[in-house]
């Protein structure tokens, strides 16, 4: 039964009753309610337990500032979402919510019953208490404390909600749609500029939805409806409701999250605006007195909001403790409207010494100026110590807000950079003032946009007037705890303690006491805390300052920030032109960077190991084929093309001739080896260069930078052609025979097409004596496997044809498709380099035994810094090969090279690291590559390959890095 629902009024749809469950109890609310409003309507006052003391807590506010009523909700996918404020949860059908921080029930909490919290838990309690004995922290204390600590419990299930991230831009972004925001939008309409209004509530209007103006002649409700009619009609205004702007970034960028969005659950918006108007309103400050946290003690404006907006009676007998007289009048009027009896009012000179009641407020104790104590029986206490502007978004840019002692609040400047502040967000209180200011600041922004000028105003709230200057906060002494931060259970006593112990700086106070570190980000506590610190430290509030404001303004779902980029969509997947035909061929793929790359091609029920051994055997003895399309390819043209290549590669390539290619090394400016590849000369001023898959985009970027920024005088044009070609390498003793079967229109015998050459022509220009088709091709005689090999490049859309034809015509020659795993075995047998293992960003060409490839006759990128003496010291790690001394024991992967085998507790100095360790199918024994100090001079030395992780060690013998065909005769065949 909604016993506390008023008969009439409210901004709710009584035709749409919604049933929901709270702590297992089936309840009814209406469409338009928040969970908090529906709970109050059902006369539920006890909603949660506090974090440290497990004190009973109710609903304190009606907005994002709520620090008491935290609940856990079950979302539509059955995933628990903790720490939601009951005041921000929109009521929906079959909503399931429950109290948190209590066991077994919110109304009977064991921790509270046992007084586990109690006064023991003052600020710094953990730091002081759990110091000794020292090793107990790890074994004992931490485990116990971790179990008790924390707010709510995160679900361990995957988040099944759907998210997206999107962008928008506008000339004027108005954050907040209260009277100020709406007035600003109306002013913008007349000036024909594009506007976005972002409102975190599900409807526009802010306080004008519920607040009654003190002036009877202008009804805020009527005004709002007129404003909305104009705004909704205007195509230049984009309205974003349920949209919380949580972060302010550079150059007019803000981040917002739209909840309950369509078609996904939440959308994170990145909005870029030319001017941003903060019409974010203000937050009411609570009063600090003994036992100020009981359910039933509420902010005065929130009480009015529950009465007028939700038609809910938060109590039956109310007491008022409100500093501002206008607000007192408004609250009195609201209480009368709801039929709530006014049991008393706190008069000037009186203060509250304590409250009573367990799950609901029963009694307020008051001390008057003569020291007489009286009790007021009531179940609702409306409190207000004034307002603090919501200028956190301005503060996020690093601007410190000034403390204004008249308002006892942090006040923003009227404008900072692209941001303007208006209305209650800069200290205005009255409805009519806010409207006037919203309009005025919007016109300011528009004038700046039109004149394209930035006005940097230093003026503070010159319009700001408050109806009645509130008296200074008086200290209400009492027996019970006086809460400054309700959510983190920070007491006035804790602030005093922190200062007494030397944590005087505002940032230290925050960290020592945890004040303002809860999910409410101290919206109701920080300004009060500054006043408290002012009193305790006897320093001025402006000297005390405030802590940094950082995004998010209010908690948001991390899922929304990630958007749709989860799982497979975390990064784009790149497929080579062979992907489809490989799939038909039963290929097993692996992800390598963004690439989905062929790993191996199992036959029937082969295991990976079996498949790899078969593939490697085929390449060494017959012929295999592998996809090489992921290599980067850049077409280089121009009269200075050779000069350019000569500057970026360290090899002597000046003598290259058309039709030939070179294996080349690229160094960084500091002389460290960066990338390897080939340079093929197609014609006099035309080259094709390749680079490793991993570095292709960074090398492309680098080439562009050199040509554009450093050497603009060179006549060179470069084009990235990586994706234009499908590239299939055929490798093995039968490679030439197979290539002939593809009918190239050029001679391919050893003499006409030697190793390290390139040919351009056509494939299949004749077949069976008859013309069948013509496939343009570029064929490179290069080898990564160490066998006779041809890398056949055809335009990407011939990939399917090329692979099928090679497999078909090569059948008699034993053609076998192989993948990345086999490629790796073959290159390790040959001691060929790979990026990330041997070329690890620390090695020089000399370290890797490639001194001969470094030209001494020319200058190139890296040549100067390569001459630094330390880069050529023999003590540097150098590439060597390892074989097990007994010829058969496997060498542990990622091992270190040491003098002794692994032994428990013995620490050895590593002399080198393994970069690769395999079982060689060609040599029929384990082999490894390693970087060993002075390795090139240590051949035949015996060392131990030690893996402390697997606790294995193998005795190994040092040797050359090339295990297979060291003279390189097989590539010529």
């Amino acid at each position, binding site marked *: 039964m909604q016993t506390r629902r008023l008969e009439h009024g409210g901004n709710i749809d009584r035709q749409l009753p919604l049933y929901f469950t709270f702590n297992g109890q089936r309840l009814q609310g209406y469409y338009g309610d928040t969970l908090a409003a529906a709970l109050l309507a059902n006369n539920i006052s006890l909603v949660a337990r506090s974090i440290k003391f497990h004190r009973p807590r109710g609903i304190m506010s009606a907005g994002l500032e709520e620090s008491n009523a935290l609940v856990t909700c079950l979302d539509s996918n059955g995933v628990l979402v903790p720490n939601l404020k009951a005041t921000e949860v929109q009521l929906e059908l079959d909503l399931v919510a429950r109290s948190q921080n209590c066991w077994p029930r919110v109304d009977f909490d064991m921790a509270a019953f046992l007084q586990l919290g109690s006064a023991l838990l003052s600020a710094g309690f953990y730091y002081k208490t759990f110091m000794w004995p020292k090793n107990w922290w790890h074994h004992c204390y931490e485990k116990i404390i971790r179990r008790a600590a924390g707010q709510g419990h995160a679900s361990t299930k995957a988040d099944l909600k759907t998210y997206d991230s999107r962008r928008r831009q506008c000339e004027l972004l108005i954050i907040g749609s209260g009277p100020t925001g709406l007035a600003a939008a109306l002013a913008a309409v007349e000036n024909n500029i594009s506007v976005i209004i972002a409102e975190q509530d599900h409807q526009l209007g802010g306080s004008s939805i519920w607040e009654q103006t003190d002036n009877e002649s202008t009804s805020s409700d009527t005004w709002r409806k007129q404003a909305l009619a104009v705004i909704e009609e205007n195509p230049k205004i984009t309205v974003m409701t349920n949209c919380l702007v949580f972060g302010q970034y550079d*150059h007019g960028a803000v981040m917002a999250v739209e909840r309950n969005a369509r078609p996904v659950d939440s959308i994170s918006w990145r909005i870029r605006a030319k001017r941003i108007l903060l019409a974010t309103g203000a937050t009411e400050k609570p009063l600090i007195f003994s036992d100020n946290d009981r359910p039933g003690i509420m902010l005065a404006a929130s009480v009015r909001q529950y009465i007028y907006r939700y038609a809910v009676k938060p109590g039956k007998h109310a007491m008022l403790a409100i500093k501002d007289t206008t607000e007192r009048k408004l609250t009195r009027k609201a209480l009368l409207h709801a039929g709530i009896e006014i049991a008393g009012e706190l008069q000037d000179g009186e203060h509250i010494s304590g409250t009573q009641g367990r799950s609901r407020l029963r009694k307020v104790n008051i001390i008057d100026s003569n020291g007489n104590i009286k009790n007021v029986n009531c179940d609702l206490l409306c409190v207000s110590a004034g307002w603090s502007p919501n200028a956190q978004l301005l503060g996020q840019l690093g601007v410190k807000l000034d403390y204004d002692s008249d308002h006892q609040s942090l006040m923003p400047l009227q404008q900072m950079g692209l941001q303007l502040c208006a209305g209650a967000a800069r200290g205005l209180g009255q409805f009519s003032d806010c409207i006037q200011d919203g309009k005025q600041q919007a016109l300011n922004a528009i004038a700046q946009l039109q004149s394209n000028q930035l006005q940097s105003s230093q003026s503070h709230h010159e319009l700001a007037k408050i109806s009645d200057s509130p008296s200074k906060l008086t200290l209400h002494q009492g027996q019970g705890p006086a809460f400054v931060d309700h959510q983190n259970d920070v007491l006035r006593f804790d602030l005093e303690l922190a200062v007494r112990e030397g944590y005087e700086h505002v940032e230290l106070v925050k960290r020592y006491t945890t004040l303002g570190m809860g999910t409410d980000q101290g919206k109701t506590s920080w300004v009060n805390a500054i006043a408290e610190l002012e009193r305790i430290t006897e320093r001025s509030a402006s000297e005390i300052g405030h802590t940094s404001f950082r995004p998010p303004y209010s908690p948001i779902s991390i899922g929304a920030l990630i958007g749709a980029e989860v799982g497979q969509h975390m990064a784009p997947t790149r497929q080579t032109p062979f992907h489809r035909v490989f799939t038909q061929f039963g290929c097993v793929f692996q992800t390598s960077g963004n690439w989905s790359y062929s790993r191996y091609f199992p036959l029937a029920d082969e295991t990976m190991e079996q498949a790899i051994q078969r593939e490697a055997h085929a390449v060494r003895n017959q012929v295999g084929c592998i996809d090489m399309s992921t290599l980067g390819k850049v077409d280089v043209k121009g009269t200075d093309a050779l000069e350019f290549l000569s500057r970026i590669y360290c090899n002597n390539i000046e003598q290259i001739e058309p039709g030939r290619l070179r294996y080349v090394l690229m160094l960084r400016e500091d002389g460290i080896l960066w990338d390897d590849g080939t340079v093929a000369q197609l014609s006099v001023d035309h080259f094709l260069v390749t680079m490793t898959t991993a570095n292709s985009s960074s090398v492309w970027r680098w080439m562009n930078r050199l040509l554009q*920024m*450093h050497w603009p005088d060179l006549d060179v044009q470069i084009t990235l052609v990586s994706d234009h070609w499908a590239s299939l390498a055929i490798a093995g003793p039968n490679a030439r025979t197979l290539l002939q079967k593809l009918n190239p229109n050029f001679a391919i015998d050893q003499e006409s097409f030697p190793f390290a050459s390139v040919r351009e022509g056509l494939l299949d220009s004749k077949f069976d004596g008859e013309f069948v088709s013509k496939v343009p091709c570029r064929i490179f005689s290069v080898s990564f496997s160490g066998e006779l090999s041809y890398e056949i490049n055809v335009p990407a859309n011939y990939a399917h044809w090329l692979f099928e034809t090679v497999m078909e015509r090569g059948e008699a020659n034993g053609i076998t498709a192989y993948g990345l795993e086999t490629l790796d075995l073959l290159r390790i047998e040959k001691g060929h380099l790979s990026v990330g293992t041997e070329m690890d960003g620390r090695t020089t060409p000399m370290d890797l035994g490639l001194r001969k490839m470094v030209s001494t006759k020319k200058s190139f990128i890296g040549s100067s810094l390569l001459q630094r003496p330390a880069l050529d010291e023999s003590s540097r790690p150098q590439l060597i090969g390892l074989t097990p001394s007994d010829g058969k024991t496997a060498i542990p992967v990622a091992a270190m090279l040491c003098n002794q085998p692994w032994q428990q507790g013995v620490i050895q100095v590593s002399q080198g690291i393994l970069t690769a360790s395999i079982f060689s199918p060609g040599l029929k024994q384990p082999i490894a590559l390693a970087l060993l100090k002075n390795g090139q001079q240590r051949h035949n030395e015996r060392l131990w390959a030690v893996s402390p992780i697997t606790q294995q060690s193998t005795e190994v013998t040092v040797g050359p890095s090339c295990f297979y065909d060291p003279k390189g005769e097989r590539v010529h065949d």
Partner: protein
Amino acid sequence: MLLIPCPHCGERDENEFDYGGPAIDFPELSANTAEWHRAVHLPDLDECNLEEFWFHAAGCGCWIKTQRNIKTHEFQVFEQPNRGQS
């Protein structure tokens, strides 16, 4: 979330660009080790106005050189030495 003024495309969002680090003037390739060391490892960096390279990868494909006030993020663009790619 900077807005970077590309001289070819206008003000564009930061994530269209690859960062190229502080703008370095390369010495001659044949310059000695000390000179290259200064250029690569010890560039003159102003404490406030930082000269930088950006690559407009998702835009015109041009490298640009800018000056950024690292306190206010105010940008200035230099005349570009490049001939552009597009």
